[in-house]
């Protein structure tokens, strides 16, 4: 036994030496830009390609791409410890106001000075605007990724729904006209990303989620938006509650699927699925909205970030601006105007959303400081409200309460120092 234990101790020591050999890498390497992104899955591979292409141009400062699951938690840990803060980070548009308020983001002024093409005119306006807080630019957009509606071409023509698509605005009334006309097991629409759909309807109805900085969810507009969508459920046109609407669309049983721009790549892997993309359905015949967000490039405050690095970051951002057509492969809408106007980009399905001015305007990014809380609450309650599982007034009340309570607990909230 003793001898065995000795062997054991030796092997532990051995393993330890091996491990120590691959010691910690220095996050503050002056010659490398540490670039964190939450781009897991396929997206990360496309971003890897872009980074690789950039590094192949032999820049003064190279970029190291780090994909992170659960990135925001990880950001909290490094911000809290003050060490290992990444040089450049992709954050979602909804996160920008919060981080700015906490004084965590560095302004992009120096970066924009270094690369004059990084300016408002060269980007889609709502994406650029999402990085601008009170006149200061804190983040530069990479893309817009949006709620969209895919349609199954075969089913749409089978049920004579082609006319719905003509004005690029499929209305709820048009969908309702299919009531009673579908074969068993077929549905008009699924409930994928339903929270985003509701947030889009609010814009269609001319409402908002806030009033003077306070959350405003228990409103007539919200109620109307939910009741409009609920009609589809009540008419039996929506995929049954609890079914995976995304898979049902891929399985060829659903005419319309409200999903994200990024899903086109996955849909393309399904044989026999002939699909197209259009705007998310609307209750109004005059207006349609695709609730969107943006991946934004931002710098967390970090004293160790040298001026040379900032120059390097600027050069990399300019490279992304000019070359992000690669990013279109991931199904996203690049935020760079040069790219979306390029002929090469027109082959991508999502180019539909920048094809006309009206389309571009339909991509709506909420900029409310507490949007994340709102979206969380809407996601939690919308589905039960649409399915008629809870009383609508109680549901709206609970949503409003939840968001207000969370804001009260957030830093700077009313309860601070109570």
């Amino acid at each position, binding site marked *: 036994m003793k001898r065995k234990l000795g062997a054991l101790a030796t092997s532990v020591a051995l393993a330890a030496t091996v491990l120590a050999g691959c010691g910690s890498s220095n996050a503050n390497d002056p010659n490398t830009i540490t670039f964190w992104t939450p781009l897991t899955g396929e997206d990360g591979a496309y971003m890897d390609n872009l980074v690789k292409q950039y590094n192949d141009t032999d820049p003064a400062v190279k970029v190291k791409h780090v994909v992170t699951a659960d990135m925001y938690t990880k950001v909290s840990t490094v911000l809290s410890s003050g060490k290992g803060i990444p040089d450049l980070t992709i954050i979602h548009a*909804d996160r920008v106001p919060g981080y700015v308020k*906490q004084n965590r983001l560095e302004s992009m002024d120096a970066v924009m000075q270094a690369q004059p093409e990084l300016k408002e005119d060269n980007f889609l306006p709502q994406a650029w605007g999402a990085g601008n807080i009170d006149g200061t630019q804190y983040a530069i957009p990479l893309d817009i990724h949006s709620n969209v509606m895919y349609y199954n071409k075969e089913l749409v023509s089978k049920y004579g729904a082609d006319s719905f698509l003509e004005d690029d605005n499929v209305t709820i009334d048009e969908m309702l006209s299919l009531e009673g006309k579908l074969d068993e097991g077929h549905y008009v629409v699924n409930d994928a990303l339903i929270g985003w759909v509701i947030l889009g309807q609010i814009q269609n109805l001319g409402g908002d989620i806030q009033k003077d900085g306070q959350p405003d969810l228990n409103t007539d507009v919200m109620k109307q938006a939910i009741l409009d969508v609920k009609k589809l459920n009540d008419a039996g046109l929506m995929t049954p*509650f609890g079914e995976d609407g995304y*898979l049902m669309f891929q399985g060829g049983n659903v005419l319309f699927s409200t999903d994200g721009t990024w899903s086109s790549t996955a849909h393309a892997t399904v044989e026999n699925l002939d699909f197209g993309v259009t705007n998310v359905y609307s209750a109004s015949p005059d207006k349609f909205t695709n609730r969107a967000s943006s991946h934004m490039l931002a710098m967390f405050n970090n004293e160790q970030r040298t001026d040379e690095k900032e120059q390097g970051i600027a050069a990399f951002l300019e490279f992304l601006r000019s070359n992000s057509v690669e990013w279109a492969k991931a199904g996203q809408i690049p935020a760079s105007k040069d790219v979306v106007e390029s002929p090469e980009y027109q082959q991508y399905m999502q180019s539909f959303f920048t094809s006309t001015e009206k389309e571009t305007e339909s991509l709506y990014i909420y900029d409310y400081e507490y949007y994340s809380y709102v979206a969380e609450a809407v996601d939690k309650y919308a589905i039960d409200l649409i399915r008629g599982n809870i009383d609508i007034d109680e549901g709206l009340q609970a949503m409003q309460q939840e968001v207000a309570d969370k804001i009260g607990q957030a830093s700077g909230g009313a309860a601070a120092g109570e």
Partner: protein
Amino acid sequence: MKKKLNLAPALFVGPHLILFLVFILIPTIYGIYASFTQWNLAGSPNWVGFANYKTILFDSDSTFHMQFFNGLKNTLLFVLFTVPPLIVLPLMIAVALSHKKLKGKTFIQSVLYLPGLISISAAALIFTLIFNKQLGVTSNVFGSALAWTTHQPYAWITIIVLTIWGGIGGNMIIYRASISGVAEELYESAELDGAGPIRRFFSITLPSINFPLIYTFVMTTAGAFNVFGQPLMMTDGGPQQSTSVLMMYIRQLAFGSGESIAGMASAMAVLLGLVILVISALQYYVMNRNSN
């Protein structure tokens, strides 16, 4: 002489004590401290005294009050539904496997242990597909017309099935190891005395594995109180938050989208910790007393 007596235990328990201090005690104390603060994880915590506890326990209008009690109720239900089968089923398996003439023990044991090795997300996906109405077993084989994950009591059933399927392996091998340690002679002499298998189980096997039994009972319960993966991935807490367990709320407050509400999350975690503490102490006390 006295010194020598004090030194030896320090050598045995000392190294672990240091590890415990650094990696468990300090973080736990910090977690308890955080429960008295308002904190967004990234910045420095802001002391608020008992405000979080007051809100959670007494402010019946507050979302956090609703979340805590709804979450605790659902967690208790999960414990009640899963702990007894996670104790009894593995025990029955271990007893059946100790049958001397049985063939294929290694195979049986491996099959039953295997699910515990599959990552929770893959396991949940398997069961999501199985319980899926369009693609799965429930409608195509059993002709059930409902989507199970969104209708009670089926939503609970899917969670329980996944938990038991993936969770019996650990206790099974603890019981296997324990029963194999019970002296053969005890059974032989009992059999000579004319004791049947049931009596032998209750008068020999159970008392002999009493200590491991206490262990599995306490630890399985504590583990069940910490559950979040299975409900999160099978039902996402639905329908109508009826399977939202406390740990899901705590995790969403601390690591959800938007600014973290870690102080409130900590207070809920501390309260959950107290509940676990009281229940496991009771279990230990009752079972230990019965064994003496």
